[in-house]
């Protein structure tokens, strides 16, 4: 049992961290914005906090705060032009932003370019991660039932209609975009102080898409959805690894191929995400019963 805990403690920590990232994407998804900018914000937050810790010997809470604030501040001027775009265009613009951030850090000697910052002290604890996820989840849960929450949902369902009702789309979308950036930046700062290092290669297109996938696969009808998606998809490669070892399979690309197949299956058969799985199963059983 003890060795099990020790072996999988890091997986658990990554599940929590990714849950935080999925929630950062949820912030923009819940008002209908398909934003892929959060990997870029995470990168900025991670570097900002790591630089403070290493070069300025700042205390950890200050580094964390900077990790959340710096991307949030950058999100404001970015949001104005970008949030006017619809659907897939917004997604592509934010992909472009993320790539520009990555290329910037690869070429910046102050942060050692591709090597990034190493030997960062490990200040992040599992407890801190749990607390962060709990706090953000709680915030979103409260938001849902509030007036602002209803406004956001109206925006997501039908933006033109919502704006005729007096809801200012620009303000709400910008607020959620900045919030998402802050959460992603915080996650970046936490990760930097968990894995001892920050390097630009970890924040590319793949990372941005992963976050979106966690949120959508989990389902955005409930706050718990993105968390569920993140937990499931972070644990899946490790579960497949353990299963592979148990059956004596040699490690290799097969595992990630199976990972992709499972993802495809979830997207195809559970359109409202994992969080709607019980409802989907119930609907299936009902249809079966009706047929007999």
């Amino acid at each position, binding site marked *: 049992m003890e*060795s099990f805990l020790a072996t999988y403690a890091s997986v658990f920590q990554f599940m929590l961290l990714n849950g935080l990232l999925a929630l950062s994407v949820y912030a923009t998804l819940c008002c209908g914005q398909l934003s892929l900018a959060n990997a870029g914000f995470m990168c900025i937050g991670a570097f900002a906090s790591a630089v403070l810790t290493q070069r300025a010997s700042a205390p950890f809470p200050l580094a964390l705060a900077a990790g959340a604030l710096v991307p949030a501040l950058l999100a404001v001027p970015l949001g104005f032009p970008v949030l006017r775009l619809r659907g897939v265009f917004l997604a592509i613009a934010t992909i472009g932003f993320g790539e520009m951030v990555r290329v910037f850090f690869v070429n910046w000697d102050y942060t050692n370019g591709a090597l*990034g910052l190493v030997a960062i002290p490990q200040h992040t604890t599992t407890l801190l991660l749990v607390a962060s996820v709990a706090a953000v989840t709680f915030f979103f849960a409260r938001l849902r039932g509030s007036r602002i929450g209803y406004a956001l949902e109206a925006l997501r369902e039908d933006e033109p209609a919502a704006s005729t009702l007096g809801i200012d789309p620009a303000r709400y979308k910008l607020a959620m975009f900045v919030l998402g950036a802050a959460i992603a930046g915080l996650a970046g700062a936490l990760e930097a102080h968990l894995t001892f290092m920050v390097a630009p290669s970890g924040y590319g297109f793949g990372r941005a898409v992963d976050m979106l996938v966690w949120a959508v696969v989990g389902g955005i009808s409930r706050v718990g959805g993105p968390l569920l998606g993140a937990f499931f998809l972070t644990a899946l490669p490790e579960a497949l690894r353990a299963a592979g070892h148990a059956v004596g399979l*040699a490690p290799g690309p097969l595992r990630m191929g199976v990972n992709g197949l499972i993802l495809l299956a979830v997207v195809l058969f559970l359109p409202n995400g994992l969080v709607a799985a019980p409802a989907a199963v119930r609907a299936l059983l009902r249809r079966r019963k009706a047929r007999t």
Partner: protein
Amino acid sequence: MPRRERILAIAVALVVCGLGATARAQAVPVKVGAALSLSGPAASYGASQRAGIQAAADEVNAGQLPGFSLVVVLDDDASTKEQGINVYQRLINQEKVSVILGPTLSTTATAADPIAQAAKVPVLAMSNTSPKGITDIGEYIWRDSLTEAQVIPGAVKKAQARLGFKTAALLYGNDDVFTKAGYDVMVKALADLGVKVVATQTFTKSDRDYGPQLTALRSASPELLMVSALTDNASAIVVQARSLGLTMPIMGGNGFNSPAFIKNAGPAAEGVLVGTSWDSTSTAPANVKFKEVMARRGFTPDQFTAQSYTAVLIVAEAVRLTGKAGREDIRAGFARVKGLATPLGKFSFTANRDADHEATVQQVKDGKFQILP
């Protein structure tokens, strides 16, 4: 001999034989973990490392380490640091290995090695060439891969003595730790020799088209083109350079030291100089044996194979020197490894736990690597 004595003698002989057999059957297993990139962008290097590790382990277990049996536990980190960390935790806490080999990528190493250091598990890095952030993590982190700083300066000096160039152009991959570190060293080495760098261009790992960069370098008319690239990019760079009309000598670092380079570059590889840590043409017995072993297994070895094969030999030597197979014992054993005969040459560790063996300069002649005389 009287009958009673004879029976006693036979009984004693049987007991002794029995004891001997039990001793042989009870070889102490030495669990050797390996965290390799078997999928993702670094998969080709991880595959090479796996071949070297498995070959070496089989060789060692065929009688070179009496009383012990190496048990290799491999895992795939998908070229990401998260899975690298998860693999390390699994190897340390579940498989309870005595030593970890790897990981393939330097960035994964900077994230995962601190965990091994904290858990007091020795790590032997086989392909991490970043100057900072590897062995300086702590006394449990060792490496058998020469950094570019240990290879390039000597190579450049030798090449300059032979070719007499006074100007040079540089082309390097700026988004990979390996190639960026190589570039930093190349710049310094050239400066130390008084060679003027007339143009510099960069590319990224996933680039396949180097036309724009090579054309820009061509217009600067350098007398030498130095390239810091990974194997995957090296051959395409050389082929495209030659077809764009760049005729000056080309010199590369460790990434060029691979049979795949010659195979993929074809005639364009002719004359290319390579500063490298593995002399594939060496006739030292350890290297000859290594090549034979790999040939028997149907695998063409490259530098990654040589370094990972050597890593297993070093672990075996550490066990032999201390006579024990625990984590502390292997670490203590590493410190005592001196002049071990390996495919890389006579191997020892430096005081900083870095690799210490001779580097070489090779040149491609008639489609094969040869030592530059």
